[in-house]
């Protein structure tokens, strides 16, 4: 086709008005462009037409009958009428039949879009009575399925299949016996439904509707989801009573999520309104909390912190904004005179980041989510994306639908295993051997990308020598994975059927004492196969928190200044010029070291923002003892939690929906966070609180910061961050508002952002092969006293420790208690069934939970999510032994014993 013709616009007349549309548009597009009210019950505005409802009927001059506008291609010169008597008469007849399907009732509230359409066609009462009756299915916690309000348009099934790739709901049967249902024809809750709500959002009649009483929505605010690192766009509904609607809408134009959401993003924002939000600053006196004003609280905090200049540490929040993070690190460095600032990456991906910095010079995900969909092979290692990054899992499923191979490496049978082309189940802690063996296959079979290795890497020789041990036979013996499967995975990864390969990993790789070796083994694999630096390839550590990327970018790490800049003289001088105060040149302590420093007295004051280390640290009993040693503890958060209970001052912070700012997601996309509602009570944005604190501490220390910490808005904070961080240099709130989220590096205002890294070069110049060694499988392995291997991780319905999700009723209903996954053979031996109460204990502590008998875990292994439910938390059991290089604790492996509890 001629390009000019394709670019041409077509001119149509609709109801006497002229409208232009692009080639490929339908008549319905033209009608909607003119905002003419034409019913379109089965048409989701961002999906292909289903053509099922037959209500968008129009008259077109020269065309016989009344075609449906939704799948009628627009043509230049077409004369369309939505008001032609034939079209109205026939459409009214169809609406009559449609309305006849439904049983009116008080809670059905006019049947949404259908009610409006019927009204416009003066259809008060339908001619017919419904052919079917059905009770409401209320088995899901957030929404109901009410078949008496269902017009069988099929939008829900498309949302479930084509948008989310879940496949829980379908249109069963045929003809007028058809109904929306799930496998086995049972209740919704018996299905694989993940409560993502995509179906609820698209339902035109309210047959699928949220359970909360419908309140009028005053306005809608587009922002970014506060849960995992995927960074989906969400649209918050603000009700006329100034509360958020239970259900958020998706944002089809968001380039990271493309209109997809999971249950937490869709329904999980209710924590903002939790009854136990702390709304007033508090100061502890005589062992009791006193509610005070901001001045008093900030002064109390400043008095305490000023006493410990240099003997201070801060834990920043990867949940807060880039702006919040930037202000914290500036306070720590410029005012408190230390680089002791860290965030939770220590507990998740520090080995990945460290290894990537050593090997390539940057710690970020190299590719975009789009690359997963364009890849020919996806290798997903130690990550349960379906539970923890559900929207990424959808991208994987979309890729597979297009023919990509999925290789899953996981000792636990995660949901992705059931869809994978190949599932490798290595013994925990044997990953290095596995990946080294794959690398050997790639080299031995001539699948290596010799050109890439020669031009773009160094150190291949020494690395190759280090593989000598990693024969297939030996790897099979060590890992428990068959030689054939190891080789197949290597071949698919190195030479995918089409395009490139993406390597994706999670905490199953990093939370080990040999985490950094694991990460290097993976990186070497990507280098030897040359699977990075082009579309459809790349390396991706899946980030757990909404802003864990941005928190590091903004400088909340002890090793680097904002933008991962080093403590070298020119950089320090540059920061000194900007800040008026010189940051210290010595590397600070990571959070696990800070906790140890509480015990030694090296650190005596601590500022904890949006984190709960007394739930997330390994070996909690030990951590509690350490925190006891602090002289001053200032906590800034939404809720009173385990750590806050120990604090001297509590500063109530605004939640994500109550402030302006930005988050940076796993694909390096900086996206806007927007204020939808006023902060609860006296709560304030974190950046404001930290700035106020900084000014007060500086005054007490006699430091002049009169020109600093003087921002009037989050936007001004961002401008300072962008000025000091070259790869963010081209970004501003205004630009992000205009263009939507952009991916760094984006150094200048006219730079479009960067889809994938390493296309031409690495920050280090050449990437380095770093030999990775298979060390002991884990610091603590099962023995006769503690015969089970405990694995920890997360759940779809709870987010991390559960501080937020425990405050969302519907999520609690979906996962109310701590479950201990146990293999059927072990369960048989213990004589327990699913639901039986269990006690799990390690050398460090114990927890109680309920058995979930499943083949998802191996015999001899247990899995417990690290969410805290009913006072039980997995981290009472875990081992604080850490990876010497990255200092990450070994959350993934420890030895425990399990016993049956007699029901109380």
């Amino acid at each position: 086709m001629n390009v000019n013709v394709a670019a041409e616009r077509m001119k149509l007349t609709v109801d006497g008005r002229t409208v232009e549309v692009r080639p490929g548009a339908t008549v319905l597009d033209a009608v909607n462009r003119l905002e003419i009210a034409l019913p379109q019950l089965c048409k989701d505005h961002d999906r292909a037409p289903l053509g099922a409802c037959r209500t968008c009927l129009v008259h077109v001059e020269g065309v016989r009958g009344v075609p449906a506008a939704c799948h009628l291609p627009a043509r230049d010169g077409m004369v369309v009428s939505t008001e032609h008597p034939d079209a109205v008469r026939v459409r009214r007849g169809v609406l009559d039949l449609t309305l006849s399907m439904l049983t009116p009732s008080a809670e059905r509230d006019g049947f949404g879009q259908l009610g409006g359409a019927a009204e416009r066609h003066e259809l008060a009462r339908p001619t017919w009575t419904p052919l079917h009756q059905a009770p409401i299915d209320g088995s899901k916690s957030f929404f109901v399925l009410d078949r008496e309000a269902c017009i069988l348009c099929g939008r829900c099934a498309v949302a479930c299949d084509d948008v989310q790739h879940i496949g829980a709901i379908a249109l069963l049967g045929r003809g007028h016996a058809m109904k929306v249902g799930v496998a086995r024809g049972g209740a919704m809750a018996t299905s694989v439904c993940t409560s993502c709500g995509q179906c609820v959002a698209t339902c035109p009649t309210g047959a699928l509707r949220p359970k909360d009483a419908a309140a009028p929505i005053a306005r809608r605010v587009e922002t970014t989801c506060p849960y995992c690192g995927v960074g989906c766009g969400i649209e918050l509904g603000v009700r006329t009573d100034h509360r958020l609607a239970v259900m958020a809408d998706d944002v089809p134009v968001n380039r990271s999520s493309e209109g997809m959401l999971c249950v937490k993003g869709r329904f999980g924002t209710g924590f903002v309104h939790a009854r136990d939000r702390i709304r007033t600053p508090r100061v502890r006196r005589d062992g009791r909390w006193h509610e005070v004003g901001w001045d008093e609280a900030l002064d109390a905090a400043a008095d305490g912190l000023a006493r410990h200049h240099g003997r201070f540490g801060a834990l920043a929040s990867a949940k807060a904004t880039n702006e919040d993070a930037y202000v914290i690190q500036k306070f720590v460095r410029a005012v408190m005179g230390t680089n002791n600032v860290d965030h939770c990456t220590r507990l998740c991906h520090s080995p990945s980041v460290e290894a990537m910095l050593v090997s390539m010079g940057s710690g970020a995900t190299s590719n975009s989510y789009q690359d997963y969909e364009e890849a020919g092979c996806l290798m997903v290692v130690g990550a349960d994306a379906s539970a923890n990054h559900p929207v990424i899992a959808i991208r994987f499923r979309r890729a597979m639908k297009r023919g990509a191979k999925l290789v899953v490496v996981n000792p636990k049978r995660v949901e992705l295993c059931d869809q994978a082309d190949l599932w490798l189940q290595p013994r925990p802690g044997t990953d290095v051997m596995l990946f080294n063996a794959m690398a050997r296959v790639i080299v031995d079979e001539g699948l290596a990308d010799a050109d890439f290795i020669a031009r773009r890497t160094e150190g291949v020789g020494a690395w190759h020598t280090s593989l000598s041990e990693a024969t297939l036979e030996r790897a099979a013996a060590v890992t428990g994975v068959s030689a054939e499967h190891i080789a197949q995975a290597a071949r698919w990864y190195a030479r995918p059927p089409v395009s490139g390969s993406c390597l994706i990993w999670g905490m199953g790789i990093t939370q080990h004492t040999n985490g950094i070796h694991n990460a290097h083994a993976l990186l070497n694999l990507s280098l030897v196969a040359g699977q990075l630096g082009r579309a459809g390839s790349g390396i991706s550590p899946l980030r757990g928190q909404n802003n864990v990327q941005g928190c590091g970018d903004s400088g909340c790490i002890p090793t680097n200044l904002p933008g991962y800049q080093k403590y070298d003289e020119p950089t320090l001088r540059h920061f000194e010029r900007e800040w008026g105060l010189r940051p210290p040149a010595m590397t600070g302590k990571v959070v696990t070291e800070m906790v140890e420093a509480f015990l030694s007295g090296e650190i005596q004051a601590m500022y904890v923002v949006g984190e709960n280390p007394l739930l997330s640290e390994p070996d909690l009993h030990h951590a509690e003892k350490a925190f006891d040693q602090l002289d001053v503890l200032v906590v800034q958060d939404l809720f009173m939690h385990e750590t806050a209970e120990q604090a001297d001052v509590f500063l109530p912070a605004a939640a994500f929906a109550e402030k302006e700012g930005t988050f940076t997601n796993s694909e390096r996309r900086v996206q806007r966070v927007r204020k939808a509602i006023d902060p609860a009570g006296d709560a304030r944005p974190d950046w404001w609180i930290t700035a106020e604190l900084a000014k007060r501490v500086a005054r007490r220390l006699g430091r002049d910061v009169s020109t600093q910490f003087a921002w009037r808005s989050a936007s001004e904070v961002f401008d300072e961050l962008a000025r000091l961080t070259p790869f963010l240099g081209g970004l501003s709130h205004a630009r992000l508002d205009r263009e939507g989220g952009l991916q760094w590096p984006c150094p200048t205002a006219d730079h479009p952002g960067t889809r994938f890294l390493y296309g031409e070069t690495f920050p280090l110049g050449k990437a380095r092969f770093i030999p990775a060694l298979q060390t002991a499988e884990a610091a603590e392995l099962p023995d006769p006293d503690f015969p089970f291997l405990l694995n920890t991780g997360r759940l779809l319905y709870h987010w991390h420790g559960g501080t937020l999700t425990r405050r969302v009723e519907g999520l609690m209903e979906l996962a109310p208690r701590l479950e201990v996954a146990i293999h059927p053979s072990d369960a048989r031996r213990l004589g327990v069934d699913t639901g039986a109460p269990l006690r799990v204990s390690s050398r460090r502590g114990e927890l109680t939970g309920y058995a979930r008998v499943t083949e998802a875990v191996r015999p001899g292994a247990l899995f417990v999510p690290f969410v805290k439910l009913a006072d039980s938390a997995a981290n009472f059991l875990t081992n604080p032994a850490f990876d010497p290089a990255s200092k990450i604790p070994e959350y993934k492996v420890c030895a425990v014993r399990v016993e049956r509890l007699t029901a109380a």
Partner: protein
Amino acid sequence: MSEKILSRNFGVKDSHTLKVYRETGGYTALAQALGREPAAILDEVKKSNLRGLGGAGFPTGMKWSFIPKNHSGPVYLVINADEGEPGTFKDRYLLERDPHALIEGMIIAARAIKSALGFVYIRGEYVEPWRRFTAAVREAYDAGYLGQGFDIVVHRGAGAYICGEETGLISSLEGKKGWPKVKPPFPAIKGAFGQPTIVNNVETICCVPHIINRGAAWFAGLGSKTQGGTRMYSVSGRVTTPGVYEESCAITLRELIERAGGVSGSGRLKAVVPGGSSAPILAAHEIDVVMDVDGLRNAGTMAGSAGVIVFDDTVSIPEALMVVARFYAHESCGQCTPCRESTGWIYKMCHRIVEGKGRKDDLDTILDVAKRGAGTTICAFYDGAVGPYISYIEKFRGEFEALCQR
């Protein structure tokens, strides 16, 4: 009586075997076709005036020509052997008694449209025809006719009339519910498994070897001005000798009924369904119509699948409509609201009328719903239901009114 072309071997013993097929001139057209360019074959079929014999009557050559010229991926040829139109049984005869004609026709058609893979979708109830045809395919592979650049997959349906609709058939072939697809895109552009696809009826493709062997002009001359060839008329109902009659499509309905031994039962004709149950009914005085696509269209009905059902004057038209309405209610796929809801409601009302519980305004309600729904749906199924709803009531209203006393 015209020359038997497609049914010439129906009476021959073991006509379904390769041996007999070859002995009676089988696979000679293929040999000829292999020496011709695809475009030349297409041209020959176009000139023959061959029209689709499954129901829609679309010119076959033109349909083939819709395959995009510059398409580089696979093209599929799909044979619609999901015979299901009430009153039609001719494809069953062809599958059972002359399966190699279909295979030969497919290989030639595939050459014309540059397809390397064909599917034959046989309705699930046709177990014997499926066995016969599968055996013939095996013979054709053994003899080297298949597997040389063209393969055939024999697919069994699972019981759904809608799979006879070409895009419903494609959905079903793809392993889904047999839901028709919205058009555009049309199958020739994006059909089975997302690739350009031609769906043809069994009988249509069985004509192709004869067109190649004896020429387009000969074939065109067998039929009417706008439709070439003979047609296999399935004649049933109240006739003396029901069966398949191969006749020129220039034959009139009156002549056709005579060929089948005339009206049985009372011997007095009341009405005829001329093209399968979806064709609007003709009253006794309308049977001088020519049985080709255009002739029947001009008479306000359609040639459809050429299934002719004869009613003598003892047949109750309201009862017949109830049977037909039950069928459409049972077979509506459920996708489009007007079809799903109307077929359900109209069957209920017809049932009520036959039970003597009808109301006087029921007839107008049925006509109103039927007329408003016509032409509004994704596929032609509902229009096929509307044909009988309207024609039975409008042509025999008195009979219905006699039953509606309330």
